[in-house]
């Protein structure tokens, strides 16, 4: 399998003061579905920003598609083939949809990426229409982003990335603020994209979705280092690890691999169907 990202001894600190990542070593290969787990402020979002070459390691080395990722390489004003190749291959869904939805209509938003990549207008139009239809956004086509609901905004964000057709998808807290139905929709979409061979890297602290959207889990501790990097089963069954990473609380519990439907009744009891 081709290595997509290779991070060697990577650290990052903001303003040379606030440490966000400490001595990180990760290799990610094509077609993997990886969840990056960690409590708030553990460095998940920073890792995604580094993977998308939006910020750079303050020490250590980052390689993407076999080439070093450095500020000079990406900020060059001259025609930069590698940067363009990278932007075509890697798509980033931001945590806050309002950051990502800067165009005046949903159509323009979805067309923005393909246009910047220099595709001809006809191709951009065709692609945009197809993504709108696939994501069932036809009724929102000409709406302004500020008039959309949270779930709709998230859908448009994902659509605006899918129109570029990246092989690698980076998602920062994708289920945050979504209602249960929209969460299920998103999980199914990510599963379909995984089947299509996309590499999906998701940063989250929503433990309920981990096993549904990924096969590998990387756990960040509150000291900004990697506490575990293994398959999902191993990580999710290691309660001590999840507790030390502040991802679960003493009163939270898991049911191992047991799949069942149950209701939490208003009296606080946890009822299981027999």
């Amino acid at each position, binding site marked *: 399998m081709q290595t997509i990202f290779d991070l060697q001894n990577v650290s990052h600190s903001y303003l040379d003061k606030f440490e966000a990542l400490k001595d990180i070593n990760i290799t990610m290969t094509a077609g993997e579905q990886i969840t990056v787990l960690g409590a708030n402020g553990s460095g998940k979002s920073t890792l995604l920003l580094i993977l998308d070459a939006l910020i750079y390691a303050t020490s250590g080395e980052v390689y993407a598609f076999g080439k070093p990722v450095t500020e000079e390489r990406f900020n060059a004003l001259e025609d930069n083939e590698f940067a363009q190749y990278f*932007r075509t291959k890697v798509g980033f869904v931001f945590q806050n949809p309002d950051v990502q939805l800067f165009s005046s209509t949903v159509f323009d938003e979805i067309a923005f990426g393909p246009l910047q990549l220099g595709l001809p*207008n006809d191709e951009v139009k065709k692609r945009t229409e197809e993504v709108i239809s696939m994501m069932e956004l036809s009724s929102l086509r000409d709406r302004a982003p500020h008039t959309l609901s949270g779930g709709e905004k998230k859908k448009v964000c994902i659509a605006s990335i899918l129109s570029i057709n990246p092989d690698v998808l980076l998602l920062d807290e994708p289920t945050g603020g979504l209602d249960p139905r929209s969460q299920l929709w998103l999980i199914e979409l990510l599963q379909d994209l995984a089947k299509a061979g996309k590499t999906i890297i998701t940063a989250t602290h929503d433990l309920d979705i981990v096993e549904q959207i990924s096969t590998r889990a990387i756990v960040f501790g509150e000291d900004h280092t990697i506490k575990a990097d293994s398959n999902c089963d191993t990580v999710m069954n290691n309660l001590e690890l999840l507790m030390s990473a502040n991802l679960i609380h003493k009163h939270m519990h898991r049911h191992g691999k047991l799949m069942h439907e149950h209701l939490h009744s208003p009296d606080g009891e946890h009822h299981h169907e027999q």
Partner: protein
Amino acid sequence: MIPDWMNATEAGPYQGAASLAKKKGFAKKTVDGVLAFFQESLISETFAKRKGLLQSLDPRVKLISMLVLIVGVTLMRSPWVLLIIYLLTLGLAYFSKIEVLWFVKRVWVFIPIFAGVIVIPMLFNVFLAGNVLVPIATLGNGSHLGPIALPSSIYITQQGTTYVVTFILRVAACVSLAILLFLTTQRDLLFKSLRTLQVPKVYVLTINMCYRYIFLLLDTIADLFTARRSRQIVSLPLREEQKWVGGRVGYMLVKSLDMSDKVHQAMISRGFDGDVKLMHVNVMRHRDYAAIVTVLACCVILGLISQSLISI
């Protein structure tokens, strides 16, 4: 886990007196103002989607036509011609399915603010000499207002009145044309059509984004003020209120700077490299060519009238 004082609860009907507010607090006024802006812009956007005369034209044609017409109007000196042009804008509003009364109100809200204050002094003989129309006061010889020498009597002049009426009609016609353009064109198409005037792409994108984020930031402001109202137990002295508002202004600046960084990252992530690429979807039709020819002809006629080469 919780401290003792938090264990005390007191639920029950309130026994004290309730007074009615005589006027709205500044927080409520601000929230109301923001909501009114949202409501207004929502109403405005519905006009652009109606199937009317101006809506059927290419936005580039409309933009150029309105600009040319505004230039033509500014050259006109005759109040009668200006009145006819103003009435024509009402006709355009009617055929563009805009409620004429609403449109008139919207235009005349701006006139006293932008034109009235500037031009009202010109009514009086203090600033523009002329024949007496309405006498105001007799001051006698040698009157002064500070360093300014005043005439012996103050009155409204005929010439001043004509000047003021002409000026106000000119402003009303220009504002009407600009508002018609704004009301009958979808914002994104209007901004994109600025490219026709060779406005650099980066400015078009920036204007577009500014308009989009005004809503987001106003929404945040409304949330801030609503949250404050929900926690305000007693009224604070004016100075404290001012301090709070000052603090929020700073907060909004920091927040918008932070957001601009993130928006830029989101753009770069999707391939933006400093060279903006926009999609052009407009196609000129026969009616667009007809409109631009008509407007240009009108402007030529207006120009000839203004130079007294033809008279009406």
